[in-house]
């Protein structure tokens, strides 16, 4: 999707800091560059600084320190209305006293675009979001999903190259949200616009984005494409924040051939891939995805370490089975197995041996 040749920064944050009260930093030393046409999602829990970053980019908050550049030009001192950035707000912010068409025509009017041009562009934008017949309605007469489309059309109608979206799907129900995710992504790709998208919903982030920046505590914890983020989290925050995850705590005993031997707190030994650990004796938290746990030991490599596990609960979920096990003294270890004809259905009380490929189990920092 993103052409590597044009990978020079379109939007760039350089050493950006933000503080509201002069005592604590909401955004700490943010460095971020995204090329033209990228769909970047800022993902993180509330209070992690993602919305503040978006507001600084839009111009509604000023950076306490550092530069924000758009297409190579520092925009710190440019007022919001001159930045030419489209924005979709959390509650849509459609002007209630104007019709849909007037809402869309507003950004064109303030740009002094002629009437016939305006009408053409409004019509095109409405058709793009499949709302061609709704120009005469008022926002209050539209459903949540329709308002969402209009808000999107309004952010796009003046041909902004950069569009910011602040949790735009937060108010929609699950089905509509999934549909709109697809829709937004399609439109963004069609128009080739650059999108910075803020959400706290990780599924949304994974399905829509070219890259995801995971925020926590005012810092970007990891900036990577969705698959990397899921499969190769770089620290234990990302591992736990993205997707479902089993963690076990212990100490590194030795590292050989890129495989760490970790001694868990109850004395059991497991194999893991060292990510944030380098020295024997370091404390670590290992992370393993539920679907990568194996209890058919034939599939494991020769000499792999295994653990005893006692089945606590078996949950039938249709496409998958979800089994809760007691492993290494903790009873919240989850494994997921596909509902295949030959799949074993474990029963509570059963004791099984489980194991995994060393590269699926990541030894991360102990925080």
């Amino acid at each position, binding site marked *: 999707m993103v052409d590597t040749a044009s990978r020079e920064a379109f939007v760039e944050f350089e050493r950006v800091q933000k503080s509201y009260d002069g005592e604590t930093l909401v955004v700490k030393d943010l460095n971020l560059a995204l090329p033209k046409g990228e769909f970047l999602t800022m993902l993180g829990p509330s209070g992690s600084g993602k919305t503040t970053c978006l507001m600084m980019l839009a111009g509604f908050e000023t950076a306490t320190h550092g530069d924000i550049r758009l297409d190579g030009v520092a925009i710190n001192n440019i007022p*919001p209305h001159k930045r030419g950035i489209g924005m979709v707000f959390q509650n849509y912010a459609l002007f209630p006293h104007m019709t849909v068409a007037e809402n869309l025509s507003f950004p064109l009017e303030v740009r002094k675009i002629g009437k016939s041009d305006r009408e053409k562009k409004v019509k095109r934008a409405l058709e793009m979001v499949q709302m061609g017949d709704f120009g005469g309605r008022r926002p209050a007469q539209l459903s949540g999903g329709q308002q969402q489309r209009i808000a999107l059309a309004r952010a796009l109608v003046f041909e902004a190259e950069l569009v910011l979206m602040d949790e735009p799907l937060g108010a929609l129900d699950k089905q509509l949200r999934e549909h709109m995710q697809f829709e937004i992504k399609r439109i963004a790709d069609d128009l080739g616009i650059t999108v910075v998208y803020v959400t706290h919903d990780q599924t949304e982030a994974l399905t829509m984005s070219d890259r995801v920046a995971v925020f926590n505590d005012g810092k970007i914890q990891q900036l990577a494409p969705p698959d990397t983020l899921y499969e190769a989290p770089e620290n234990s925050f990302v591992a736990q924040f993205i997707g479902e995850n089993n963690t076990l705590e212990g100490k590194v005993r030795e590292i050989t051939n890129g495989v760490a031997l970790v001694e868990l707190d109850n004395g059991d030994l497991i194999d893991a891939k060292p990510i944030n650990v380098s020295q024997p004796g370091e404390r670590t938290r290992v992370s393993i995805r539920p679907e990568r746990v194996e209890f058919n030991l034939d599939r494991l490599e020769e000499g792999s370490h295994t653990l005893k596990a006692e089945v606590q609960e078996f949950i039938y979920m249709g496409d998958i089975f979800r089994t809760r096990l007691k492993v290494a003294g903790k009873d919240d270890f989850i494994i997921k197995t596909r509902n295949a004809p030959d799949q074993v259905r474990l029963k509570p009380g059963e004791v099984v041996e489980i194991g995994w490929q060393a590269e699926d189990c990541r030894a991360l920092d102990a925080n």
Partner: protein
Amino acid sequence: MSNASEAPTPDDGLKLTDSENTGPVLAADGTPLKRSLGRALRRQKLRALMLIAPLLIFVLLTFIAPIADMLFRSVENQIVSETLPRTVVALDDWDSTTGDLPSEAVYEAAYYDIFIAAERKLHTRLGSRLNYELTGASSLFRKSGRGLDDLGEVYQDQFEDLNEAWEDGETWALLMGSGDWQDKAYAWEKSSGDLAPKLELREGIEELLPKTAAAYSSFANFVRVDDGDNPATEDPWSLVYTAFWQDLTGGANVASYSGPEAELLMEAANAASGFESTTFAEGFADIDKDWASTPIWQTIKTYSPKYTSGYFLNSVDMQKTPDGPELRDANERIYGILFKRTMFMSMVITISCIMLGYPVAWILANLPARTANLLMILVLLPFWTSLLVRTSAWKVMLQQQGVINDVLVWLGLVGDGDRLVMINNQFGTIVAMTHILLPFMILPLYSVMQTIPPSYLRAAKSLGATNWTAFWRVYFPQSVPGIGAGSILVFILSIGYYITPEIVGGTTGTFISNRIAYHISSSLNWGLAAALGTILLAVVMILYWAYDKIVGIDNVKLG
């Protein structure tokens, strides 16, 4: 939001069954569902009504009833026909447009009416009422109350000179009353606490001496009821002697009378035709020459109906004339100017309140809640001080020797000789009333602005609007309901404002309400005050209606 209205409601189920079955839907016990629902709701309605009953009664007694009374007073005019019943009837035949004086019959009727009214002390009230329409009527009636007594005394003296027996009330009681009544009347004790027995006329006396009987009955009734005395022992009014003389000279068949005092009556009848006499018209003219001119009679005739449009015509600078309503002379017109001034100044006050209140409300709405609450106290503080104190404070500030002038003189901006006149004129009223009514503008504005999310302004700016465009195209239209509510409040309050214009308004800064207050408390012309008040109420209602048509009352938000 729109989904909610499309969602099925419990009622839908009822409608469905209703349309499927042709018969009425039955409740579980077999009664029609409608009736059983009605019964269930009736108790609720009754309880709700009982809850609001105290307020309802209070409002009815203290609000609806006085307003209804006021509306009624603006057209009510029963005093003329009640005080001068005979005159009003007699005047029916008189053509007021010819310029001729009314006939002797009218003067006679007026004599009886005014004489009885004077005894009852009602003639001065009627005089004040007619004085609103014809200057001088008040003193004319006061004078006539005394003068008409003299008119009758001419006959009284002559009858008494003829025979001393006519001086005694007992003679009259014997002549006029039935024997039965006399027995009862003489047995009556004033100390008993009851009224004296009601007069019963002697049989046949009414046919013999009709006018005397009527006059004596009026006299007896007055003595009995108003004075609480015994008519049988009281000496009659001079009116009775006049009537007696009229009857005797009018061809009464005295010879047919056979009751007591027949001789005395015969003697009087023989002498009466030789009495010194005068016509009623002359008698009235002697009292005041105004009675011998048409205006007073025209006024009485014009205002004789029980209901009149006179007060309303008066309120719009018109007057009733025999030729129909016409505009008053230019130098007598006052209410039109006052109404226009009231409207104009209320408008200026409303606009100043918008100008001053809008930025304050905006700041309040955009501050953090804690600071906003603190500042809100400053807005409300004037609310909690007495209106009089605030208005008087403006007097201190604005007068020629006041704070502002002193400061200007001290700064050298204004010479000591030509200090600014800022009070006792329209300027003073506008300043003081803007200050007093400002909270009524700020509060609705604030509550409306609080509901406008800041994200609208942000959205507008992100779409490329400058600060001004974003405000004017996006924020302002959404705050219009607040302006509407505030303007209605301020305008309607100021249109009826009284105290402040009274204190700081001087002569050029007073409102129509000051004139209403004057008529209520000083000139006591309540009818005119009521008519002015009714017009004011109508103007407010028309404005409200116009506002509803143009802006829509749904768009007014108080919070």
